[in-house]
């Protein structure tokens, strides 16, 4: 309990540092929201008007306190790019991103773990070679290349899936709309699984090979325990803590989006919004997004610590400091 309180304190300190850095880093970056306006019909006076309306003409200290107030109250203010509340912008995008990337993460992790364990159990076989090759290929190919190939194959040559977007135009409603949504997400989801299962497979295979060679696994086999129990309850359990940690630390990425996937499949997601907000120095949007991501990362870190306590008895008993 004491240790957890200590970790919580550390997490809050990290968040405070991120909050301050968030403010200064965007302002240290080359350029500002006005340098991005390259329109000769936008005179220097017009830019000054804009700066005044965005509060950029106020002293930095004043801007900082306004920023802290907006962040801690979770209001976030108006986006400089769109003039709309940052919350609305995020609400429009994050659900789509999560709907695509969370299943992609879970499917690719499940597939990768399963294949990794299988490869570790059948060393030297064709199965292991296939897993190794496909795993290497999976994260060696650039995502846009694989995705364009999938589009050309399954949306153009054999038009099984739609070419773009997350719904038909005009949109459908009710159950037909839900089915239509899933049909639109199928190809990007499949592409993400294909592109990311390899990392999981290779990682788990390597960890399992190491674990299967440990003395306690040999001891379990010698005790005559069933093969399945030895694999999953003894070998895989020692692999589980790092796997859980990686899985949880991948969660912020589920919210921050996948810029290339969103571009190729023309999906409305948080990834591109974040990129554009950063590029155009949209301080309220970028600040809010990065603050929320930091919050999520710190939260997932704490959760990973908690789960490690649950899945690893050695941590519970203080075996690992």
């Amino acid at each position: 309990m004491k240790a957890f309180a200590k970790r919580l304190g550390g997490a809050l300190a990290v968040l405070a540092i991120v909050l301050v850095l968030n403010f200064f880093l965007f302002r240290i970056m080359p350029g500002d929201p006005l340098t991005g306006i390259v329109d000769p019909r936008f005179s220097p006076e017009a830019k000054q008007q804009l700066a005044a309306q965005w509060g950029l003409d106020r002293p930095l200290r004043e801007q900082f306190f306004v920023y802290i107030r907006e962040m801690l109250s979770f209001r976030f203010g108006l986006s400089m790019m769109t003039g709309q509340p940052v919350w609305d912008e995020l609400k429009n995008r994050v659900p789509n991103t999560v709907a695509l990337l969370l299943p992609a993460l879970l499917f690719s992790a499940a597939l990768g773990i399963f294949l990794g364990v299988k490869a570790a159990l059948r060393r030297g076989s064709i199965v292991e070679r296939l897993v190794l090759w496909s795993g290497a290929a999976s994260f060696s190919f650039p995502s846009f290349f694989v995705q364009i190939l999938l589009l050309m194959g399954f949306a153009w040559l054999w038009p099984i899936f739609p070419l773009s977007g997350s719904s038909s135009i005009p949109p459908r409603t009710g159950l037909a709309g839900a089915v239509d949504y899933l049909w639109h997400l199928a190809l990007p989801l499949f592409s993400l699984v294909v592109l990311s299962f390899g990392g999981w497979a290779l990682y788990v295979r390597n960890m399992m090979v190491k674990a299967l060679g440990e003395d306690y696994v040999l001891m379990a086999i010698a005790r005559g325990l069933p093969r399945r129990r030895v694999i999953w309850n003894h070998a895989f359990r020692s692999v589980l803590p790092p796997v859980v940690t990686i899985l949880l630390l991948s969660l912020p990425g589920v919210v921050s989006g996948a810029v290339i996937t969103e571009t190729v499949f023309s999906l409305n997601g948080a990834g591109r919004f974040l990129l554009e907000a950063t590029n155009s120095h949209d301080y309220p949007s970028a600040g809010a997004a990065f603050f929320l991501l930091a919050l999520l990362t710190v939260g997932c870190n704490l959760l990973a610590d908690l789960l490690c306590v649950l899945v690893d008895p050695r941590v519970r008993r203080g075996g690992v400091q």
Partner: protein
Amino acid sequence: MREKAMKRTGARFWGRLTKEPLFAFFSLTFFTVFFCAVFVSLLSPPPALASSFDIFQFEGPRMKDLYYPVIRDMDAQLLAMSTGKLDVLSDIYRPADIRRLSESGGVELSLAPTFHSFMITFNTRKFPWNRVELRQAAAQVVQRRQWTRDLFSGYCEPLTTYLPPVSPWCDPSPEELPQGMEAARSRLASAGWTWDRFGRLIAPDGQPVPPTKILCPPSSVAATTTEIAQLMADALNELGLPVEAEPIDFQTMLARVDRHDFDACTNAWTMSRDPDVLYAFYHSSMDVEGGYNLSGIADPELDGVLAGLRYAPDEAAARVRALEAQKLLCRLVPVAPIYSRYSVAAIRSDWNGVFTTERSTSDNMLTLISMTPKEGPDRPIYWNIPEEIRTLNPFVSTTAYDWTVLGTIYDSMLSVDPWTFEDVPWLAESWDITTGEKGSVLTFTLRDGLKWQDGRPLTVEDVAFSLGYIKDRNIPRFYDSVKDIESIEVDKDSRILRVALANTSYWHLHNIGGMPVLPKHILENVPDWRAWQPTLRIHSALDGTEMTELIGTGPFTFRESRTGEYVHMTRNEHYLLYAPAAVSTPSARAVSDAVSIMMN
């Protein structure tokens, strides 16, 4: 016989001229005035002709539904075009894509020059680019024709002028410097520059030219731009200048250029039809933070001419000044113009009513309202937008894609002739420019019978209110257009709007006449223009139907949008060119094959 008579007349005339002083004085005065008039008329360009373009030959919109799907990836756009998921695709710039589309069948391509200008800007505030002869020599070694052929396969125009050739204000006979390395070397040599034994350039005062850089975006962002910067650096190295291209992050580049922390850099602009943009680029008062005189050129003569251009009282004076400014710029070379991109648009061949001119591709408003399917029943138009719509609040939105949609909703007082870029009456049936006590006075007479998309009548008060709303709130997007307004008067009965301005300038006509007109009955309920979200606020039309507050007089009414996915518009049956009878008949194909370049 005739010769004898002529000789007799000549002798008589000569006799009177030598003997009668009064006759001699009047005769000489007459001939002097006559020849001066002829000389001046030859020097100054002919006054612009009033546009003869009749916009009322078009009737529409003919299709009920218009969708703007957002397809970002260029390859996905091409696939959508070839499978019929898209009907119109704009801004195709990769030569390979143009070839693919032209070979795929079922698609017609159109090509037109644009207001795009790509140039290399020299920082004239410091050595070596503060030396005019060096800038001239640099412009002479640019191999525009070869570079554009190699990099763009001919889909752009080598540029030697300071306004793009498509501009009606472009100098038709620019003073082009002789091109080539030898010409550049001899220019420098005649100005006292020398070369050391390593071939490096030495200034007339004995100062060697220091190593300099050409800033450009990285090739991952703009491959051709990086390549041009490298080619320019190679050419300048051959001339004896130690120059290298420096690709850096685009935002960092903008920030450095803003701080004047650069030697030379690449630039691309999309200009407007008005030449007063030259003032923004080259007048010394614009060499301030946030200004666009990136080169820092400060020449008193040029300043005088540009001020004359900006505050020209009428079109004739503006023309003279625009030509003078371009001639001066050709001599001062603050930037080296390189190329101007063509616009290429694709439209599915199963549509009638496609309209193109030698200056506009098929993706224009007149095509949009005239489109009808060649066969089968009416169907929606799918018109691609390559980036998501950021906002449909007209006061906040600044991107061209936002205005693609907003342009179908809002109209302005004047329109533009697609053949000549001259003014065409639109919401205003006529206008007049006079010079008052302080400055220009614009008088617009509004058309009778105009209606908003919600069925309410559009009056001259709406126009006055929307101008006043923008002026009073200093809305940055339109600040430059309205900042000089002194007063706005309306005469409701005769539908006259009088706008008095603080100074005299011909461009006020385009600034005020080109403003989007918004409805008073909506605007007076918008206290905070920044946070206004017109697409989320419900408004009732006169006939009771529900619509949003995004209401104009344009051909299409906003229906719904899904962020980053699509925007749905429907036909506005109150539109000025809408004729219910015409909608059921197929439109004639309004293409002039003589001037449009169709590449099938």
